[in-house]
């Protein structure tokens, strides 16, 4: 319905990008439950997505199960795997957990590559096209509302207490083990839903789509948007779904770089507002340099645009962590703060 409405003034390509924004939003907000709210560290989210996608596609392909039921089954299987990986978290912390989740996702990928019933290394082709923009939009909105309420409930506060200080939380009577496993199960459930939407939208699944790169992409979304904030995860999903598309041509690259420059100006303003003259000189020189590169490096940029994506991602990861660890949402909040105070009549 909405898809038809949109198709009046948008190409099917643009609608497809919008659909992927929805699917990635579900993935990003669910990963945010583990990484942002509970303070655990998972880099295996693509594994849960793969489980949900493959189980749901298997059911609709071989048994003609209705889409909603198949998606539910996929999500429940992903949640079961979340339980499986959640159990080692009783013992593992931080870095060990990161490697364990990575290893877990790799095992899923390797098993899928060797599983002939779902196509193995050839990929799973011929999945029916059961999801479109409308289904994605509705399920994304429902997921967002459910997770948003979840994070504001007593459960969500318990998860955040684990993030702030696990030992203190335990002393206050929070069953930390239970809640850490719960975080994994809930996040895996929604990742499974996203996997099912993805498979039935593209009508094709391949194990290598769910490798480490995919997990890192989802991680980057919540890092960029701001961890521990679902609006941030949404923002990150939107930005990172549009970014690779806008890097396809020179005009898009110019717009992208201009936006990145403006964000950089805003971030540096936070750090440099004590010395406005120095800050102004800094952004002026940086702006001239960017303009110079854009004009004289046009040929090079066009030639290497396709290969630049991962390099831009990795530099973004490093710079965000060093200069803006609270993400874009945190930046917006910092910038809005003096404005808010003025509105309330508080002297800054």
């Amino acid at each position: 319905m909405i898809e038809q409405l949109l198709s009046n003034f948008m190409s099917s390509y643009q609608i497809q990008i919008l659909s992927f924004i929805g699917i990635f939003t579900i993935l990003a907000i669910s990963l945010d439950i583990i990484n942002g709210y509970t303070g655990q560290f998972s880099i295996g989210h693509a594994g849960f997505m793969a489980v949900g996608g493959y189980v749901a596609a298997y059911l609709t392909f071989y048994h003609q199960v209705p889409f909603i039921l198949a998606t539910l089954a996929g999500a429940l299987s992903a949640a079961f795997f979340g339980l499986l990986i959640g159990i080692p978290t009783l013992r593992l912390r931080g870095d060990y957990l990161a490697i364990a989740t990575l290893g877990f996702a790799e095992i899923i990928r390797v098993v899928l590559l060797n599983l002939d019933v779902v196509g193995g290394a050839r990929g799973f082709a011929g999945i029916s096209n059961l999801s479109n923009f409308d289904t994605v939009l509705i399920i994304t909105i429902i997921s967002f509302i459910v997770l948003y309420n979840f994070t504001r409930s007593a459960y969500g506060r318990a998860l955040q207490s684990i993030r702030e200080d696990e030992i203190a939380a335990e002393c206050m009577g929070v069953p930390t083990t239970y809640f850490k496993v719960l975080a994994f199960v809930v996040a895996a459930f929604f990742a499974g839903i996203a996997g099912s939407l993805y498979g039935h939208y593209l009508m094709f699944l391949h194990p290598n789509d769910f490798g480490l790169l995919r997990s890192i992409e989802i991680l980057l979304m919540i890092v960029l948007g701001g961890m521990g904030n679902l609006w941030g995860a949404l923002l990150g999903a939107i930005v990172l779904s549009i970014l690779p598309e806008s890097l396809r041509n020179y005009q898009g690259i110019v717009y992208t770089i201009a936006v990145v420059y403006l964000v950089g100006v805003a971030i540096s303003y936070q750090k440099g507002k004590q010395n406005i003259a120095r800050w102004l000189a800094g952004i002026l020189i940086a702006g001239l340099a960017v303009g110079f590169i854009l004009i004289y490096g046009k040929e090079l940029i066009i030639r290497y645009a396709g290969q630049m994506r991962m390099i831009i991602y990795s530099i973004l990861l490093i710079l965000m962590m060093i200069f803006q660890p609270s993400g874009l949402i945190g930046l917006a909040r910092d910038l809005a703060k003096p404005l808010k105070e003025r509105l309330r009549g508080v002297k800054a």
Partner: protein
Amino acid sequence: MEQVVQQIVNGLALGFIYALIALGYSLVYGIIRLINFAHGDIIMVGAYVALFSYLILGVGFVPALLIAMVTCSLLGVTIERVAYKPLREAPRIAALITAIGVSFLLEYGFQLFFGPQQRAFPEFFKTHHYKLGILSVTNEQILILSIAVVLMLLLNFIVMKTKTGMAMRAVSFDKDAARLMGINVDNTISATFALGTALAAAAGMLLGLYYQQIDPLMGFTPGLKAFISAVIGGIGSIPGAMIGGLVLGITEVLVVSLGYSTLKDGVAFLLLILVLLIRPRGIFGEKVVEKV
């Protein structure tokens, strides 16, 4: 039976390479408690530097090894100063994400500059096969073993007998106390990175000899496997890293020789999860007491 023994001998060479990488991991992890994801990609950089110093400068094996080790030490120290040092007081997750960023930057930067294709690694020596009773050993395997052993002994000497080594152990034990005792913590951490990355560079060159080809993504999987080795042996322990590397190398060669080569990476991770479940501190790891 003969075949099994032969495969174990083949696995030894791979195991020693993993052990060498795992030592670097262990060193760095021991001192700043950070999984340096970029460690695996230093392996790749080391192999490329060795390749180019052979192609451009025409040097032999030992000079190429030394050039690779020195270049990577400098790279390692630079990475530490630029990317990790600003985050030393930040939450661990921030440093971990940065490490992933550095790793991807190295991989895809090299892909951009040197192309994603595989390159043949030069054969520095003619391959000879030696018969030892029922077993057959190549001179490359012997070379890999001996270089790995020499470097491990050297590392053990540096960590246990020199002043820098003593400073490293002090910093890894208690950073603040070490600073109060007049140890320059920043320099000690840099020295640790230099040492760890030099080992990784050597391992990269040996890995090039072992597989006879290199590519920009070659380091990631061995890096992860070396981390698994370090965890199996007990992170922070030098003999542990060695034993863990050997266990993993031999397991992997055996799995491949049984015909399950597509499953070999899965087996390594399975081993890791099992170890973490049964004995999370590894074979030689010390029990950590939680302090509030």
